């Protein structure tokens, strides 16, 4: 380091160029680095999506997903856990990997496993779709399409074929299938009566389509000089042509498809309905994938939209909703602004303290340079610019000036002692370098535990810790390079000026400067008085050391009694000007009825909420057509009876919509009995933290004893619902899907010449359509898009139980109706089946309101512990979700706190070569914690991960300050002062630098503490902790020092008395040889 100082002095251009380089690289990093709300949560998830139209959730889970899950355990490495959801016709298997997994290998293995089990699965099942994403992927922008003139199927088709493919080219954008609308298909509407009249079955029609609609190349023929391509009309270009497919010859006439069915351009039975303010729409969400920046994705999408609009057919309107860019850039800009304000305030403070603009410039210039250097380093490590890294930098601002301040002050001191500038700088650097290195180590070491943090919290806070550490290292390096160079020029100029002034009287100064000088003098006077008061108080305390220490620790201990009132959260709540309401209608409610009910719910919502507050309501009702959407879905939708209502408020009028949620929580359940309402996190921060779950609390029981588990969890739901502050507790797995069981009497069927297969195939063609077992396609030659051909009886012809009972199951002579050979009984089946690690699982989801997550989770945990014996012993009962992440984060952080104290202690032991003094320093640290408790208590802030991070930060700064005091006291002790005198001298001498460091930090944190951002608790904790820690450093530490060293001195004196003769002998013995 000292070599660097020499270089700085002898080759001054070196570090000026280095600074310029930092500015350029830092600026480049700012421009180039993606901006995002949070660091990427790189916990890899692979979603495997199985589709089998019409398969019930129970069958989907047992026939498809379970065999696959078993295969996964054997074939895929590094799995953390596997979850799956089985819906009607769709199964989604999510594989969560260990963070260290090689995702490319994992994807290959997952895909291969799908191929392996394919033969074991029901015939006709397609290989699964495999997508990789990360669990915190959330929609960052949504585009709604609606039309007054075109059908929903046309709109959906246009979005799917014209909009979605180009959007996927936006770097980092993940675009699932559109929500809502109707998915276009070529429909063959069977007329059962006509089929029967002609003695045909649905299967005949399916077979006819298979035989008449082919995609087989005919080949080429060589005639003369040419080789001709031979094309055959094996696939009709026109949908209407399908109507003319012959089916069979009967009574001398040809029966055509049109005689028994109607082929038309139609759509699949709708399962997903989206409405924007009541008007049907198609919604295309865009998510971020991989490490791309949300902001880049949003901007990329928005830049592409005008061009896409031109491609859309006339009459389709396009509107952007749920654009998160304002929120993200707002959050990032406000953190950046906080950092800037903090830097400015810190600079101002230094100016007040030093009263020299030259020194201030030298010191403050290291703030932007360190930040730029840290940004460059973060960018090089692949971190985005986000709230956490910027928060870390804001946190560091107050610390960055420390080293430089101490150095400059020391240089000044040496120069006042009459030394030449170069000598002064070198001497000053020599003196300072050890304590500065120690405090750098202290601060870096306290952040080390953050690097060990696991899970989501780890991904979020690691960059923060990195930011602080990089900035600190940069500042440290700058202090011995650039600062020295600048000091050489600036301070020598200052010296010359001072000399000139001494010779020719004060130079003429401007009004501004004069005012400032007066203010500075006034400040100095005030500070002197404060110092004076402090000296008296310190002497008072030193006079009664034991009483003081006892009182002090009693005060600290009493402060800790406030801890239970604080509450524990994972992260502080984020305000949002929108609400997401999940509506679960009675299980099995059909889509049309769900739409009607949602209309009524919307009307009630508009009635309840104050007029004019609400700007729009977007409904997303039912199950999206693709499992890909279900993979990204985090609202817990299980079928057409589920709806997500997004209520957007005018952000000008309503900054925080949560009071409205309370209002609706009270009113809606009373107005709509039988409907379960729950509020989902609307802001992307909480969505990211929830890690793909719809709620922060997830009580999950899994195991093979399904029924017992269900009964237990149902009882638990009633108990849990009474925990104060629990919000919207609900059972996720609806087991009451109304079901009609068709029990075919196989013997009777055999008697009349039918088999179970005949009945099943008849029913499938009528109720589910032919596509799953006999896929066929029609190519739209104009657009080049292929559409499925589905043979099915129109749903609106089957509207009663009698219609089902009267379904003909075979044509021809042995004409039978379903109820003739089968009985139909009512029953229930699962609306959704969940597996956790391939065991059947049930979940209770619950949110929180008005109380901290930790307390609610404790109450819930107690209920679970008390009733554990009611559940099957082999079942696995767990509290999952944000609370689990919070618990592990707390455990990690508390361990980190303890470890950081131990590490800090060990470092200063090395520094002081003493066990005692570091112990004194460390024993003062609880004071900082007491201060944090007070601050959080008074500001009604809960303990949270940011607050704990703040606590860790405090440990570092408090230790660094205490070091200064102890170092000085020891110095005095070595010079022969009494412990009492040394302590008093240390306190008074170090008062100023300690106050300066602490004040710089507190001022730096003030903007953050006053904001309503995620990091506010961090700022508050640092301010509270540091305020108290400074008191500890300045009062408690000297008193304890004098007490301890006084005791040691007395003991030494006593020993000296007793051991004097032996000592002399010993010395003589040592000297003698």
């Amino acid at each position: 380091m000292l070599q660097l100082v020499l270089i700085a002095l002898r080759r001054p251009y070196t570090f000026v160029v280095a600074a310029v380089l930092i500015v350029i690289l830092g600026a480049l990093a700012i421009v180039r680095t993606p901006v995002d709300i949070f660091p990427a949560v790189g916990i890899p998830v692979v979603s495997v999506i199985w589709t089998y139209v019409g398969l019930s959730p129970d069958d989907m889970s047992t026939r498809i997903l379970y065999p696959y899950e078993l295969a996964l355990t054997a074939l895929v490495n590094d799995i953390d856990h596997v979850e799956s959801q089985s819906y009607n016709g769709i199964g989604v298997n999510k594989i969560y990997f260990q963070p260290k997994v090689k995702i490319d290998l994992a994807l290959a293995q997952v895909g291969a496993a799908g191929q392996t089990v394919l033969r074991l699965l029901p015939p006709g099942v397609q290989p699964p779709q495999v997508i990789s994403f990360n669990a915190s992927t959330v929609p960052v922008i949504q585009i709604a399409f609606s039309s007054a003139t075109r059908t929903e199927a046309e709109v959906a088709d246009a979005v799917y074929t014209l909009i979605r493919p180009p959007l996927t080219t936006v770097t980092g954008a993940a675009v699932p299938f559109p929500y809502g609308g109707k998915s276009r298909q070529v429909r063959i509407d069977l007329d059962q009566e006509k089929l029967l009249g002609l003695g045909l079955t649905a299967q005949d029609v399916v077979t006819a389509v298979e035989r008449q609609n082919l995609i087989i190349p005919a080949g080429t023929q060589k005639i003369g000089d040419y080789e001709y391509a031979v094309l055959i009309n094996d696939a009709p270009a026109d949908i209407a042509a399908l109507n003319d497919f012959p089916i069979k010859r009967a009574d001398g006439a040809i029966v055509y498809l049109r005689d028994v069915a109607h082929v038309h351009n139609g759509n699949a039975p709708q399962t997903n309905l989206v409405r924007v303010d009541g008007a049907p729409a198609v919604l295309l969400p865009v998510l971020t994938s991989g490490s791309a920046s949300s902001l880049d994705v949003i901007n990329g999408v928005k830049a592409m939209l005008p061009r896409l609009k031109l491609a859309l057919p006339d009459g389709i309107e396009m509107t952007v909703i749920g654009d998160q860019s304002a929120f993200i850039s707002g959050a990032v800009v406000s953190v950046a602004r906080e950092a800037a304000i903090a830097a400015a305030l810190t600079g101002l403070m230094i100016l007040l303290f030093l009263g020299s603009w030259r020194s201030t410039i030298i010191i403050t210039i290291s703030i932007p340079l360190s930040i730029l250097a840290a940004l460059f380093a973060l960018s090089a490590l692949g971190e985005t610019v986000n709230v956490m890294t910027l928060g870390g930098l804001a946190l560091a601002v107050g610390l960055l000036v420390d080293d430089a301040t101490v150095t400059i002050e020391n240089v000044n001191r040496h120069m006042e002692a009459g030394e030449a500038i170069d000598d002064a700088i070198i001497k000053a650097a020599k003196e300072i370098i050890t304590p500065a290195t120690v405090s750098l180590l202290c601060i870096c070491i306290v952040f080390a535990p953050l690097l060990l943090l696991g899970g989501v919290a780890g991904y979020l806070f690691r960059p923060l810790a990195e930011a602080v550490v990089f900035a600190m290292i940069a500042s440290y390096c700058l202090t011995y390079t650039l600062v020295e160079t600048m000091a050489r020029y600036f301070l020598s100029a200052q010296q010359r000026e001072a000399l000139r002034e001494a010779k020719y009287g004060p130079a003429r100064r401007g009004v501004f400067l004069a005012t400032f000088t007066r203010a500075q003098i006034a400040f100095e006077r005030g500070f002197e008085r404060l110092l004076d008061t402090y000296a008296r108080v310190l002497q008072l305390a030193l006079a009664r050391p034991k009483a003081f220490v006892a009182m002090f620790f009693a005060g600290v201990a009493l402060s800790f009694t406030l801890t239970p009132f604080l509450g524990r959260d994972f992260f502080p709540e984020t305000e949002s000007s929108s609400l997401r309401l999940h509506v679960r209608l009675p299980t099995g409610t059909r889509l049309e009825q769900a739409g009607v009910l949602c209309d009524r719910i919307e009307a009630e919502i508009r009635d309840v909420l104050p007029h004019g507050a609400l700007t729009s309501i977007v409904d997303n009702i039912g199950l999206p057509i693709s499992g890909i959407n279900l993979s990204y879905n985090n609202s817990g939708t299980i079928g057409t009876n589920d709806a997500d209502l997004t209520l957007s408020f005018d952000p000008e009028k309503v900054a925080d919509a949560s009071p409205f949620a309370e209002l609706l929580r009270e009113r809606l359940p009373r107005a709509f009995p039988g409907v379960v309402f729950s509020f989902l996190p609307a802001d992307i921060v909480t969505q990211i933290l929830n890690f793909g779950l719809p709620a922060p609390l997830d009580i999950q029981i899994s195991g093979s004893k399904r029924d017992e588990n269900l009964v237990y969890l149902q009882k638990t739901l009633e108990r849990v619902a009474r925990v104060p502050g629990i919000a919207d507790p609900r059972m996720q797995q609806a087991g009451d899907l109304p079901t009609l069981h068709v029990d075919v009497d196989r013997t009777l069927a055999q008697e009349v010449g039918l088999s179970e297969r005949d009945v099943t195939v008849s029913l499938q063609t009528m109720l589910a359509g032919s596509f799953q077992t006999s896929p066929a396609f029609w190519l739209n030659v104009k657009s080049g898009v292929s559409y499925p051909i589905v043979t099915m009886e129109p749903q609106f012809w089957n509207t009663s139980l009698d219609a089902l009972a009267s379904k003909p199951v075979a044509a021809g002579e042995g004409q039978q109706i379903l109820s003739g050979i089968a009985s139909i009984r009512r029953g229930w089946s699962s609306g959704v089946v969940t597996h956790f690690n391939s065991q059947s699982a049930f979940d209770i989801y619950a949110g929180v309101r008005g109380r901290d997550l930790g307390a609610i989770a404790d109450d819930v945990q107690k209920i679970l512990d008390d009733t554990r014996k009611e559940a099957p012993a082999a079942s696995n009962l767990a509290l999952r979700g944000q609370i689990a992440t919070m618990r592990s984060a707390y455990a990690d952080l508390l361990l980190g706190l303890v470890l950081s104290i131990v590490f800090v202690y060990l470092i200063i032991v090395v520094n002081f070569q003493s066990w005692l003094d570091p112990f004194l320093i460390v024993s003062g640290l609880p004071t900082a914690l007491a201060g944090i408790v007070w601050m959080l208590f008074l500001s009604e802030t809960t303990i949270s991960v940011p607050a704990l991070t703040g606590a860790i930060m405090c440990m570092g700064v408090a230790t660094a300050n205490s070091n200064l005091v102890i170092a000085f006291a020891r110095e005095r002790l070595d010079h022969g002062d009494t412990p009492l005198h040394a302590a008093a001298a240390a306190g008074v001498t170090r008062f100023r630098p300690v106050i300066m460091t602490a004040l710089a930090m507190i001022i730096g944190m003030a903007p953050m503490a006053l904001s309503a951002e995620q990091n506010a608790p961090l700022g508050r904790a640092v301010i509270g902790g540091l305020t108290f820690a400074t008191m500890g450093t300045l009062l408690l530490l000297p008193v304890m020092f004098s007490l301890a060293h006084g005791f040691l001195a007395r003991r030494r004196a006593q020993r000296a008395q007793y051991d004097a003769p032996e000592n002399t002998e010993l010395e003589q013995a040592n000297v003698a040889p």
Partner: protein
Amino acid sequence: MSHHEPPRLQPPDPLAQAEFLRRLRPRGLVAIGVILALVVSGVASRHARDAELARVTQEAVIPTVELCTPTLSTATQELVLPANVEAFVDAPIYARVNGYLKSWAYDIGAQVKVGDVLGVIDAPDLNQQVEQAKGLLARSKAEQNLARATAKRWTTLRNQAAVSPQSADEKTGNLEAAAASQNAAQANLDRLVALEAYLNLTSPFDGVVTARNVDVGALVDAGAGRRELFRVADIHKMRVYVRAPQAYAAKITPGLTARLTLPQYPTREFSTKIMTTASAIAAGSRTLLVQFEADNPDRALLPGAFGQIRISLPPEGAPLLLPASALVFVNASPQVATVDERGVVRMKNVKIARDLGPSLEISAGLSETDRVIRTPWQSVHDGIAVRIKDGERKEAQAR
């Protein structure tokens, strides 16, 4: 610079310290007071908030329910079966004589009265046979006349005992034989004349010609099993045949009315009535053949048509009707959740008589005064206190 002055460390002056302490004391007391006040207010506000929260949570635990009361069921269950429509009477017309069709008078679809000639068969050989028979008759008549005269003469002679009885008896016998012979010839002629009448194909009853399979000049062979020449159907009424599954056999009794629909009349329904059943289950298809009768005044029903019969099966007994959503299955036994006067859930076992789809007929376990939860939740059980939806509570109070 000022802050580099050596620290002022005057030796502590006990008097000054005491004075300082005295001045510090009131400030300290005030500070402690402020701190205590902050603590008390902070804790109190948290307590108040927790109490309010506990109240709100307790409130939220009570579910709101919508009630419904069972009504007497008049609903019928509909059974839809494929049906074959046939004419009330249906007659194929065959030729009784061989010949060529000379002419036909009515084409398919024509209304005919009984006796109307549908077509005429040209059979020249038959005419010749008649002529021959006539000749034979004339001859036998002549022979009979001769025999009669001879017999008369010989009878007179016998009376005069001029001839032997033997020869007289012979002559009398000859007369009887000649008479018989004439009768035979007459009968032969009559037969051929009658056959000649069959040259005209006539309608056996009032009806509609539903088939004409010959044209002029076609060779027609006599007898059944040959070509059917015409078909006449009486369609003023129609018979409808339905094969009902065995499961419904007990419920299908003569007199039940049903509605017939036809693909060609998507909006029209024809009323029919069960006339009779086969009273036997067909072994091959395990079905009961049921015969319906339908009036056909406007000839809309056509014989041979395929249709669907919708039989409305009446409820048995006087069951109560409930929305199907009210049903809960507990251990596979159907239950409903009722709410008593105190607003507490009481589960009741019920017996489902029939499932009508949107609603259920309950035959036992429920009374008309019960208040049933319309959409109970999955885990509803006895003893849960519920809140009744606002509008209904007022109604209940009014009652």
